[in-house]
């Protein structure tokens, strides 16, 4: 089915069209939810609630203003942010900065990692860093838009992004350091 057929069918309440919409977009939507939520269970909760909103508000989608996928991502993102706000997980200006080591890492090491591994790294970030990083790097929002959405200052958004990237590099460095140590131990045992 074409996308316009699916949309029309969903607006008429046709079950097969509703299921088709879900099947086509569930993976990308779930990947978005995983990146924002701390656990898989939370991500599925957000996915469920997000799709319910999508079906309910589908009549508000205007094709002239963007693609359906982009509109759905926006709905899902808002749902994720609502969940984080409800659980008081969102950014607080009083978050403690605990980066003692900002030693630079060659960013090309990330190119050898899969999407799953990159997502796992993001999930380990504190909530505030994680949200800003996702919105800026993955969703493509500007710092001004992020500031307006999260009710923070632009400088705070920039700061959170910088710290998020630093933390990711640190995590990768620690991963490789651990791998090197394990390799050396293995060689020594031989």
């Amino acid at each position, binding site marked *: 089915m074409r996308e316009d057929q699916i949309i029309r069918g969903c607006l008429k*309440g046709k079950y097969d069209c509703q299921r088709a919409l879900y099947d086509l977009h569930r*993976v*990308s939507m779930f990947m978005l939810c995983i990146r924002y939520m701390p656990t898989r269970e939370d991500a*599925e909760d957000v996915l469920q609630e997000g*799709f319910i909103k999508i079906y*309910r508000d589908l009549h508000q989608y205007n094709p002239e203003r963007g693609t359906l996928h982009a509109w759905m991502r926006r709905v899902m993102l808002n749902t994720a942010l609502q969940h984080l706000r409800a659980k008081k997980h969102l950014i607080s200006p009083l978050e403690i900065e605990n980066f003692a080591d900002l030693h630079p890492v060659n*960013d090309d090491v990330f190119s050898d990692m899969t999407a799953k591994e*990159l997502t796992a790294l993001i999930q380990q970030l504190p909530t505030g860093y994680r949200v800003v990083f996702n919105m800026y*790097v993955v969703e493509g929002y*500007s710092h001004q838009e992020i500031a307006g959405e999260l009710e923070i200052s632009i400088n705070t958004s920039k700061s959170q992004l910088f710290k998020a990237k630093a933390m990711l590099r640190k995590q990768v460095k620690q991963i490789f350091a651990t791998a090197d140590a394990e390799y050396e131990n293995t060689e020594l045992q031989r």
Partner: protein
Amino acid sequence: MKTRNYNDRLEEIFAQKLNNDGIADDFWNLPSPEVWTAIEPYLPQQKKRKVLFWWFFSGTFLLLGFWWVLSGRHVWGNLQQANNQANSDKQQMVLMKDTTTDALQGFFEFPSNNSSLQPKNSAELGFTLKNLLSEQQEHVVAKPNSNDASTIVSRQSVRENTLETIVAKDALSVSEILLNPSQDTSYLLSAISANTKDTSLVRMESPRLQTLLIQHTNIPFLENKLPHAEVSTSSLEQVATQENPSRWMVEVSGGDFLRLNPPHLPGPSDLKLINNHTFFAGVQIARNWKENWNLGVGLYYASVRFDANYHFNFEYSKSGEQQTALGLVNEYAYKLPSLASTLDTRVLLVRDAQQNIQEGSDIPIEMNLSHSLTYVSIPTYLAYEFNTPTRWKPYLKTGLWSHLLVGTLETVHTSTVSHHEQVTHHSSSVMNEDNEQTITPRRIALDGLLALGLKYYLTKTNIIFLQNLL
């Protein structure tokens, strides 16, 4: 994703790798099936179905009204009122062979504008009867029976609920009259048959003959003048009050199906597309409203929007009339997606064979009759199945049933003992030197159909139907 310039290599890598096209990769980015299960109850659909539900009922009543007008039936008559009306109706009398003209005056009611038709003597009775029949055709009230697809509606009045017509509807009771006729009735039969080439008049099941005989006799006269007749007032009244035959049908349908699948797509199993083409081979057993058993064996095809069913159907009559029907049934159902219902039409080619043999020493008339009918039956109906959370699914059907009589084969051998006449009916084809064949013209009839039923899903493919024609 919004496009923008990246500040460093890290941003570029993350943005490119995490903004893929949503292909499932090793299940980690695939939600559990319970997510969709939790979404389903909130899917918007209820309001639309209610609207369509009421639209469907409105359409049902419109079809029902159309059926009423088209068939001209009044099936909700007052039997008691009909009986009273019948008793007060004037009855025309059976003509006695040797009755004089003056005596005939008291028995016959001739059309007022056709006084020339009054017979002068019994010799002219045959001619008179012939003209009387042709004159009275418009005013004869007949009823459709299972073997005659035509219906003649009275222009003077609708007397279908009168005792006459109720009696006439029961062919068996009328047959009792004809099985044991007196000389008077025999004479009438021979007079009719001798003066008309319409062989259907002498058929035992001819509605016109039935009604003419009834209209030309009255019950007391039958009791007095037909001593051999087994029909009496009480039996006729019993017939009149007899309940309609059962219109319930029970059908058990079952079988197994084959599913065609396209080549598997790469990825998790739940991303595969399953083709909805299904072939089903099965057996259907049904006992219908004629109390006949039906057996159907055939093939069934189902897709998302369309069903087709081809099967041979064999029907055996329980009533002992040795009536069987063998037909090739073609059913086509188009599924209306938003209405959760189907538009179903069937083409049935049925051969209905019946043979009646009446003979005996007490009967002065011998008649050997055998005939077979071939007709095309096309029911077209809209079926709406109510979605319930249990295995019981009620449904409603409404539509039209068209019958096209495409051919009949009749063999009639009649002899009248009282007049020592051998009455035979010539036809265009001859079966053998003893029998003759006649072919009746094609007839078309429309009938309304309204049924309420209940399905019980033993499994997805084994279903029990319980249906009542309304």
